[in-house]
């Protein structure tokens, strides 16, 4: 079956239970929001193809269970991911404090060059806010990670977050490829095609699924 995209990125959503990972993903993949809270069992995934600088980028987004009991299982999925979104809940200080633990978790389990991003979700709930935007930004600066406050409910910054992360991954990848490929090859946009054409998707897949 022929590929329907130019490249495939595997993203991962992590964060404490109930911060809204699944809602963010639901908003991004279905553009919908469900107020009801269904805790994720183990792992789930969604696929959405986005257009990034003229390229069809397929995002394979893995949504993990935030519950502590699934921790050992979900960390198994870190390794194959190219970008990780760390989600906390602005109305839940604890979830914010745990971001540091999640980052440590990433350092221990994910590939070293994985792209990261911090999302402060539920920013629509201003009256219940416990974590200021400044605090989030400060943390992001501390770890040199991009940060954005989102609201899956109000569809605020969700698209932006995924696009940003995808763009960063793409940029990093192109940089890498440029480094490994002989110079003089065409620009970033054509980079994928420059490699072996028929096998390209599978090569991407193989990279994605180094598990």
């Amino acid at each position, binding site marked *: 079956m022929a590929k329907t995209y130019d490249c495939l990125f595997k993203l991962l959503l992590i964060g404490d239970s109930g911060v809204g990972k699944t809602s963010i993903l639901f908003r991004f993949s279905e553009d919908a929001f469900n107020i009801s809270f269904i805790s994720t069992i*183990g792992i789930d995934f969604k696929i959405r193809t986005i257009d990034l600088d003229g390229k069809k980028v397929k995002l394979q987004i893995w949504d993990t269970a935030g519950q502590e009991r*699934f921790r050992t299982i979900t960390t*198994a999925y870190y390794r194959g991911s190219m970008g990780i979104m760390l989600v906390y809940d602005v109305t839940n200080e604890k979830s914010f404090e745990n971001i540091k633990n999640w980052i440590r978790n990433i350092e221990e389990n994910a590939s070293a060059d994985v792209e990261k991003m911090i999302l402060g979700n539920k920013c629509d709930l201003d009256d219940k806010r416990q974590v200021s935007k400044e605090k989030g930004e400060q943390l992001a600066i501390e770890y040199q990670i991009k940060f954005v406050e989102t609201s899956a409910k109000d569809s605020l910054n969700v698209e932006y977050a995924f696009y940003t992360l995808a763009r960063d991954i793409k940029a990093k990848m192109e940089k890498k490829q440029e480094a490994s490929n002989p110079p003089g090859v065409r620009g970033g946009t054509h980079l994928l095609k420059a490699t072996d054409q028929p096998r390209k998707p599978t090569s991407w897949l*193989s990279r994605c*699924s180094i598990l």
Partner: protein
Amino acid sequence: MPAATDPSAEQKERLIAAVKKEVKQLMEEAVTRKFVYEEGGGVTALCGAVEACLGQGLRRRALGLFKTSSTTALLHKIAKNCPEAALISARVLAAEGAPATRSASGVERRPSAPRPPLNKRGSGSLLSQPAPQAKYLWIRLALFERQLAKIIEHLVNNATKYYERDALVADPDYGSILSSLLVGPCALEYSKAKAPTCFWTDPPADELKDVEEPMPGYLSLHQTASGLVIKWTPNQLMNGYAESEGVDKSVYWAMSLQVCVWEVVYVHVHRSQASDALILVGQDGVQRPPQVFGRNKGRRRPMPSLCESGETEEHEFEDVAAMRHTLLERVVQSPPRTPRRTLASTSTTSSDSSTITMRRQIISRAFYGWLAYCRHLSTVRTHLSGLVNPNIIPEDGAEEGLTEDMWRSLMDESGVIKNKNELFESTAEERQEQDVSYRRQYETTMSEWLCVEAIVRQRDREATAASIARLSESSGKAKIETNDTSDVFEDDCSVISDNPPVVSPEPSDNEPTQKKIDVKPILSRAPSIEEIDNMEMDEDKVKDVKQNGETDICDLDLNYDDDDGDDEVCIKSVVENPDLRRESIAEIKRLAEGIVQKGEGRALLCSVDSANVNINGNSTRSDEGQQTSNQHNTHSVIVTNPSVDLAVSGSPASGGTTAPASPARSPLGVVREESHSAGASIDTLDPESRPDNRSNCVSPTSSNGGVYSNELVESFALNLHRIEKDVQRCDRNYPFFTDENLDKLRNIMCTYVWEHLETGYMQGMCDLVAPLLVITKDEAVAHALFTQIMHRAKDNFPSGQAMDAHFADMRYSPHGN
């Protein structure tokens, strides 16, 4: 080429969804139980789903792979290029090599299942497992070895070699997702150890989709070694199902249902407009995921790992047989589940007859279980009724107890009563006579033990006296000696009168002549009981005593002579006139006390006639008193007050020794009162009350004329103290038990114990007597009744054997099987 429009995309979507669902369920199981049971339904279901994915679009012909075990062959094929596959391939070959002849074993697990065409399980089972785990062998092994994700990743990366272009594995989206999804399961802990239950405790994930269409299937009942198993299998998995080839079977495997009836304790059926839900509760109290049956559609939720195949397990809950029956009926009759399509018609009819047989068997088993239980209950009942009363009165209203009406009706029926008088099989006169004789007997007995009691008291007093004397001596104050002896005597008196608390400080103050003031300091230094005991045998004292002894004796003699006559009259009157009984008993007490005062205890001789002998024996004791008596002849009795002071002053020694004498309501109440009033004017009282006592003592002794052995006295003393303790404890809150009535109680107890000294007093006897006394208000009658009761109740006291028997019965009754 838009994937969405691809007709095969839907199928791939479904295949992946099935895998995802199984992955989730496995994860749930893993986190709930920390590990996954290798042979559990979750693993099998996941392997089935994976198998389905891998089998779809496989280029069998091109690869030379044929119908059976094609994915296993594929594994062996890629082993050259993929180290993980090579590892598993070797394991599979090894496993298949050992017990290679188990091809039919799969039937037991899911009996109605055909072999899925892609299964390699046909050739063997997993190592030595008796259960047919051969299914999806290589996937299973790869999963346990945590290589499955990598092997599939290899397949995905080289999909073009092995798969058609539209195969799931070759799909750019699903291929990688399949391998990625399996990363989690490969990280789980697997165990061959079966957890107490292999049911996951949480309901299945909400996201898991139902199959909406009505599902025809095959319902079957299986009798296994461990019990009955109900199975339901979709038709798609049946042998000979038309579309069996190339269809994703995992979905159907997930739908198949297996209920081990013996594991189910409760069955809840929830009915609602839209659907019915059947919830099974296992022995562990864990609810199984609900089975939802659509009203008309026959839709049901999958319950993949509801129950494992019939592995033998011991189950203790036997009395759920009825429940099982309910369940079975429910399951069998539940219309939505029984297939409606023509396809399933054969299976329905065939299951009907077997169902009936099964039901009959279950019912009969339940009945016999119930019967056995009833038999056991009747045994228990027999044992329990043996505890209470061997004769069971089955009459209506028996629970009210033996009312007067009941009694009468019983007697009427039995024809015993012709008229009221015949109730007791005796005439009123006879009964009266009996009562009189009882009383006479009672009083006689009482006079006997009262003598001994007096001796006991005297001994107690002596012990106290001697010890106190010792104390004074050891204190080294020679001057005080005289005081000491008087103290001792006083103390004795107090013991007799038994009313230390009653002692008023006034008399002591009023009688400075009696040297009580001197005594006090000594007493306050009271020795411990042990010291007192040690001092008893002080010899020095005896010498002193001897000198004074004679005068005392004279006094006593005089008293005897004076009062003898009166006393005898008293006793006679008692016998003749029941109304005077109480008084006569008081008399007897007085008599006894008289003996005590003579110090009879030492000699252990109590013969009335030889009053002199008694006196001689008493000499040591009376001598002590005599020192004081030199000044006041009658002092001895009167000195009560000082003795009281002793007790009040709180000297532990005196308190300890007098305690058993039941100070508050002494049996010698009469004496006490007298001595009390005596407080002020000693001289006047002495001739009246005290002398009486002394003189009285002659008659009881004379009537008994016995000599009591040391053992007898000691054993009675022991019982006496016990009785007094227990009597004091008895029903103090009940108004009836005034001091006077407690004395009665004590008397009854003492009398009984005197008659049954070999049994002695045992705690609780008092509580049996108390109600009798309340009802009869008559010592003698209550005593007679109690004696009768004890004929039967005796064994229930520690000396009898009945206690052990009862405990044995009790032990038997609660457990029982």
